[in-house]
């Protein structure tokens, strides 16, 4: 039996050096006993031996090193044994670490996670107490009792976080110091080494008691995340029992309390608020823009961001009507600003129509979509939704008073003409409405974006531009007439 006594209880490099020697000498894990200086020697006098050998040592997967570096901080006496056993087995089976169901791998994984959890709890539950030194400078000290040897691996976190402070963390097995520049370690200490009181603790306890909601007691949850063993070093923990005891009563009291009269401040405030404005007829685009945000004529308002109303001059000879706002339009609140809007803009520029002189809107003002994965997928509005929104389109037509209305796509055509008009039958010629305006029908620009075949797309693009060319010609005549 080879016995190895390590100088340090959690120094991975030291363990690695010794393990490498054993491996070279070909000594099997069953023939080695490991211990650190803090554990008692066995009954039989042990002889420390340095075995010699020159057997080649293979490399190990990085996952083993990572877990081993963490697990060596576990306070379990078997950690060195386990690490060496795995190292030994890894020489023959390089894929061992991938076998998540292997008992040794599971044990190592559990040991490492216990250490990580302990380190995490140190980050969470260290409570610094402030001490003013002779120069009036504030210093901080904390007492903490970890389950494992986690101070060395955790202290750098505190150095990164409290760089601008001078602090010490004292544990039973080691202490860490930060002077504002460098981290250093020293032997462990006692609870009495750090101050017992702190001026801010009272505020902290007040906060702890007030942020607690007595209507939602979940004591098991609290205890699993903040195990009782930590409570003795947490100033707020003394409040837990009284808070729980008072909770049921507090909740009952809350519920039993009858509703009271509102304070006079509230009544004054209510009186100050303007009397509700009578709903009068909407007689301007500005008024319509406000009113449409409250529209609940159909269900689409429920999930869209807001209504996207038309944009453009208050009076315009030409009005473009699309289907509905898309994702971009919904987010920005402006019509035709997404990909389809860019297609429209480019085509208008090509045929010489000034978009800014025209009024651009949609048949339906709210975005209809279906959430799928991480995106909102456009859905075509149905007849009821088109009908419900006709109110707003009619209002826009009445107020803007266009001579020419360009219906982009089937939804716009349906809204303006009723029925189920086919674009291919009607495109390229004017249809007169009852109020004298002319409706001109073409495709929706997003139709072009959906054509996969480049040749077909170019063809349709040409037709679209030809249609808009006609629109441009009619628009010029209109300018001349007016």
């Amino acid at each position, binding site marked *: 039996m080879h016995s190895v006594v390590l100088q340090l209880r959690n120094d991975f490099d030291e363990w690695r050096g010794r393990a490498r020697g054993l491996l070279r000498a070909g000594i099997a894990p069953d023939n080695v006993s490991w211990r650190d200086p803090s554990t008692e020697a066995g009954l039989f006098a042990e002889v420390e031996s340095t075995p010699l050998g020159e057997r080649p040592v293979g490399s190990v997967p990085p996952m083993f090193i990572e877990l081993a570096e963490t697990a060596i901080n576990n306070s379990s006496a078997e950690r060195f044994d386990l690490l060496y056993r795995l190292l030994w087995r890894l020489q023959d089976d390089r894929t061992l670490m*991938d*076998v*998540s*169901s292997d008992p040794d791998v599971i044990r190592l994984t559990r040991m490492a996670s216990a250490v990580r959890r302990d380190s995490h709890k140190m980050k*969470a539950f*260290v409570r*610094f107490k*402030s001490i003013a030194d002779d120069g009036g400078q*504030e210093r901080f000290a*904390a007492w903490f009792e970890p389950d494992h040897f986690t101070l060395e691996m955790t202290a750098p*976190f505190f*150095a*990164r*976080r*409290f*760089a*601008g402070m001078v602090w010490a963390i004292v544990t039973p097995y080691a202490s860490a110091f930060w002077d504002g520049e460098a981290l250093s370690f020293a032997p462990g200490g006692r609870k009495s080494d750090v101050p017992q009181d702190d001026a*801010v*603790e009272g*505020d902290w306890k*007040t*906060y*702890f*008691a*007030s*942020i607690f*909601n007595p*209507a*939602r*007691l*979940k*004591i*098991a949850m609290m205890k699993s*995340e*903040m195990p009782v063993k930590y409570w003795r070093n*947490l100033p707020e923990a003394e409040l*837990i029992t009284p808070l*729980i005891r008072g909770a049921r009563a507090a*909740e009952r009291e809350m*519920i039993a309390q009858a*509703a009271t*009269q*509102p304070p006079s401040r*509230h009544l004054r*405030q209510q009186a100050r608020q303007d009397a509700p404005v009578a709903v009068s007829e909407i007689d301007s685009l500005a008024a319509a823009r406000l009113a449409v*945000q*409250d529209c*609940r004529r159909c269900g689409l*308002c429920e*999930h*869209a*961001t*807001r209504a996207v109303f038309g944009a453009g001059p208050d009076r315009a000879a030409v009005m473009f009507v699309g289907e509905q706002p898309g994702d971009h339009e919904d987010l920005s*609140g402006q019509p035709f600003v997404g990909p389809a809007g860019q297609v429209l803009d480019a085509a208008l520029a090509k045929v010489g129509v000034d978009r800014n002189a025209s009024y651009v809107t949609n048949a339906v003002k709210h975005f209809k*979509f279906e*959430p*799928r*994965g*991480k995106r*909102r997928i456009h859905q075509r509005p149905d007849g009821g939704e088109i009908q419900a929104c006709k109110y707003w389109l009619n209002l826009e037509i009445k107020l803007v008073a266009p001579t020419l209305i360009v219906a982009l796509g089937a939804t716009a055509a349906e809204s303006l003409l009723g029925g189920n008009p086919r674009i291919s039958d009607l495109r390229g010629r004017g249809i007169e409405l009852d109020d004298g305006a002319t409706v001109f029908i073409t495709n929706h620009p997003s139709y072009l974006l959906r054509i996969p075949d480049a040749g077909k797309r170019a063809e349709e693009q040409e037709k679209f531009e030809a249609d808009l060319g006609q629109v441009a010609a009619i628009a010029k005549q209109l300018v001349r007439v007016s």
Partner: protein
Amino acid sequence: MATLTLRRKLAVLSDAAKYDASCASSGSEKRSSAGTKGIGSTEGSGICHSYAPDGRCISLLKILLTNFCVYDCVYCVNRSSSNVERARFSVDEVVRLTLDFYKRNYIEGLFLSSGIIRSPDYTMEQLVRVARSLRQDHLFAGYLHLKVIPNAAPELLAEAGRWADRLSTNIEMPTDAGLETLAPEKKPSEIRTAMARLRGKLDEATPDKAARAKPEKFAPAGQSTQMIVGADSADDHAILNRAAGLYTGYKLRRVYYSAFSPIPDASSRLPLRPPPLMREHRLYQADWLIRFYGFDVPEIMAGGQDGLLDLAVDPKLAWALKNRARFPLDVNRADREMLLRVPGLGTKSIDRIVATRRHHRLRLADVARISGSIDKVRPFIEAADWTPGGLTDDARLRARLAPPPEQMSLF
């Protein structure tokens, strides 16, 4: 009015803040105070520094700047018609408390919200001042979460995002009708417009590989929201539909579901019942399935009944029990996406299963070791040495897997 001590203000303004469920301090950029004279760091995962007996993590100093409010939202403890004690912190008081708490390692940072006083702009400006002072005057690098006041000026939102890690705007109610009834002064479109603006800013701040210039930083921990469950009649279907719309529309990191709690001096228009905590829990589980397990809302609701999730079993098990024809799945062959549908298997266990089976075929005991528990899993899988036989289609399966009803005893 008598002046309140700082401690009394703290009591009032943290009591007023406790109905906001979020206390997350995770998901921000990596940042530390190394080399500065300041304090503070964020390293990706958040830290819960304490737990209250309500089982909620205490990670942040969660307070209101003031609980005076001009709005009269029925569900809110701070509504203008309520007689709760009122208080207001000064900007400096909040800054000092945050630093004092942070230096003692009580907190990860500050979550600051406020009642609406004077105007949305004025209120938002106060919140921004606190954040600016912490970052600029005190070189504070800890976590900051600011509440966004809907209708505040876009410039204020831009500055808030410059200082804060996270911003949030509460949608409050699962349906617009619910909001209209319980919070008549709040407009759903204004709340969603604020979220859309934040989304725009967050998109702008996402580094574009093609562009060389690094975009200006904006709320690196993104935006979140909260809705109250059980104050109105909205069912789980409406709640999850709302959440799905919000996640896809505004790229939210989280939707928080807050079981409606009875509040002191409650309005007579509210249900005076203890909060539906199990319902809240099931909603979180369903939310998780949508975001990480490839489920959609109709599928999840198919596991429930009449628009409500099954309270007795978790939503994945509920779905599987109604879709037994898809099971059992062979753990040695099924692809990851299918394994995600197996009750009792989480994403981590599934990753381990997929890695391990490359080397040898898994037996039931292997799956048990990897997943930690096997009862829920067993009826839905096949392994090298296991086939569930008639267990998958057993009519009593649901009863066997549902936890026994609490405290039932025959006399």
